[in-house]
């Protein structure tokens, strides 16, 4: 078990090293990606700020609560961009042109080889900015010591729910071959998760909590951090993670068996 973990970590270190080597080869693209991330960050923050210049609350939350939620989601988004975002597009491409063949041949778990292969170093440049704003609004909503300790775990749990949902969706690429539709649907689900769950009607909320549990990504942990009596959804997070891992293993294995590989 320990040697297995060591093996995967040593491969992952190489994934990171080779991704950095590739990304830094194209300097303009590297800078453009940083600018894109900056735009995303500030448009999100200032849109919310602008809305609160005209109203006092959205649902139960005031300006600081919603901005803390937004920073929480932006932090998850930043980690998602660094660790996973490129792999989804690459999977679609490699199923279509058959380059997935070489991934299947490698003596590692294919989920790891596919989804952890690409690392985006340009997004790391802005990580301190995301952390700074998260701390700023965390202070403004009055997080306690325990909350600050829990915060990193909650971010990683939210990220885990998000990527597991996406991995499950992407397994469908083995059947449909063209993955663009699935990738855009995945991005729309991400968009839905960037809003707190109370903006959705009861039926939609139930659907987005039970069927496609994207409200567990950000709404569940932030509600718990702001109000300890709202622990129900927060406790559902580990359950969702276990169920999603179970589903992923089944659909991924079925997908791999369905893989035809492109002709040479």
């Amino acid at each position, binding site marked *: 078990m320990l040697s297995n973990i060591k093996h995967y970590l*040593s491969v992952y270190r*190489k994934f990171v090293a080779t991704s950095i080597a*590739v990304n830094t*080869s194209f300097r303009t693209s590297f800078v453009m990606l940083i600018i894109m991330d900056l735009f995303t960050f500030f448009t999100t923050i200032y849109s919310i700020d602008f809305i609160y210049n005209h109203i006092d609350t959205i649902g139960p939350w005031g300006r600081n609560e919603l901005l803390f939620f937004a920073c929480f989601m932006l932090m998850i988004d930043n980690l998602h961009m660094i660790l996973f975002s490129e792999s989804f597009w690459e999977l679609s491409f490699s199923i279509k042109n058959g380059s997935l063949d070489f991934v*299947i*041949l490698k*003596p*590692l778990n294919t989920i790891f080889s596919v989804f952890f292969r690409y690392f985006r170093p340009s997004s790391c440049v802005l990580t301190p900015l995301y952390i700074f704003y998260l701390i700023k609004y965390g202070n403004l909503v009055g997080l306690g010591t325990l909350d600050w300790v829990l915060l990193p775990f909650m971010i990683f749990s939210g990220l885990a729910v998000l990527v597991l949902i996406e991995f499950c969706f992407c397994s469908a690429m083995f059947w449909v071959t063209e993955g663009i539709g699935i990738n855009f649907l995945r991005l729309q689900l991400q968009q839905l998760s960037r809003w707190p769950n109370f903006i959705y009607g009861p039926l939609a909320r139930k659907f987005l909590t039970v069927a496609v549990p994207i409200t567990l990504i950000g709404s569940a942990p932030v509600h718990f951090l702001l109000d300890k009596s709202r622990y129900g959804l927060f406790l559902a997070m580990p359950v969702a993670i276990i169920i999603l891992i179970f589903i992923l293993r089944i659909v991924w294995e079925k997908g791999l068996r369905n*893989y035809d590989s492109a*002709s040479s």
Partner: protein
Amino acid sequence: MSSDTVINVSQLCKKFVSFKKEPGIVGSLKSFFVRNPIEKIAVNNFELKIKKGEIIGLLGPNGAGKTTLMKMFTGIVVPTSGELSILGYQPWQRDKQFRKKIALVMGQKSQLWWDIPAMDSFTLLQKYYEIPEDKFNERISHMSEILEVKDLLHIHVRKLSLGERMKLELMASLLHDPDVIFLDEPTIGLDLVAQENIRNFIKEYHARTGCTIIITSHYMADVQALCERLVLIMGGKKGFDGPIHEFEKVLGNEKTLSFSFSTEQNPEAEIWKNYYPEWDEKNRSVELRVPEEELRDLSMKVLQNLPVTDFATEKLPIERVMKTLMENPELLKERSND
């Protein structure tokens, strides 16, 4: 299965389903709503046994099922039915140990990262296959010297020529010292010198390691230089399996007889009729397939009656046999009925 059998294939089948689409916008709209599935049997009841240390040439025309077989052998594609065992493993189960013991080189696909030097890809492969540092360095040094690519290891792959890239692809696939190597058209698109370099390298590697190699190629020179045994696949079925010298006689004991003439000849003349003549554009030279027992009589007849400037005879080349079989696959059926 005997202990030295590395590959054991029985009744192996693979079906692919695609759909038919008519051309144009109307065709696209129609096929969006109604799909006409077409089932294609890529491999049909295929049987094969390969012993440890053999080099097998897998030949066949385009679409015969060679690459599909290779993909089933390596676990990339799951068979529809039949039995398949490689080194005692079922490839489609993708056991970690199995994947460490095999290698696949595809002449038309690359496993090297395009935007970084090959050495960076090699160090990643070292981690994948858990190759100890000393063995890794030793193999890199040895292979790069034989393939003459020492100076290319630190150049971005996208800047290399096809031949250079292929050498590095081979290195990438052999770094983990596999027991069974699948080479799918490893010399495709290479110039003659590069082809020969690759062939010599494979030969040397096989002699040194005693590994088992299955190679597909459209270049008969590859097969002749490397393989003692040849397996012919046509329409997903095995058409021939045996030593290469027997394949040369698959059409009977025929030889190639070629003549050059000082004047233009009549290709329709009776004399050529039974010998599958192949004329040049000016009808001044011809190549014939002649049964060994008729060789002497026919040669004398032509030499005495026609203005011959040059003539030669040789064994029927393997390429000629392949071409004839591809044009007349029924000859194989006739042969198996005999």
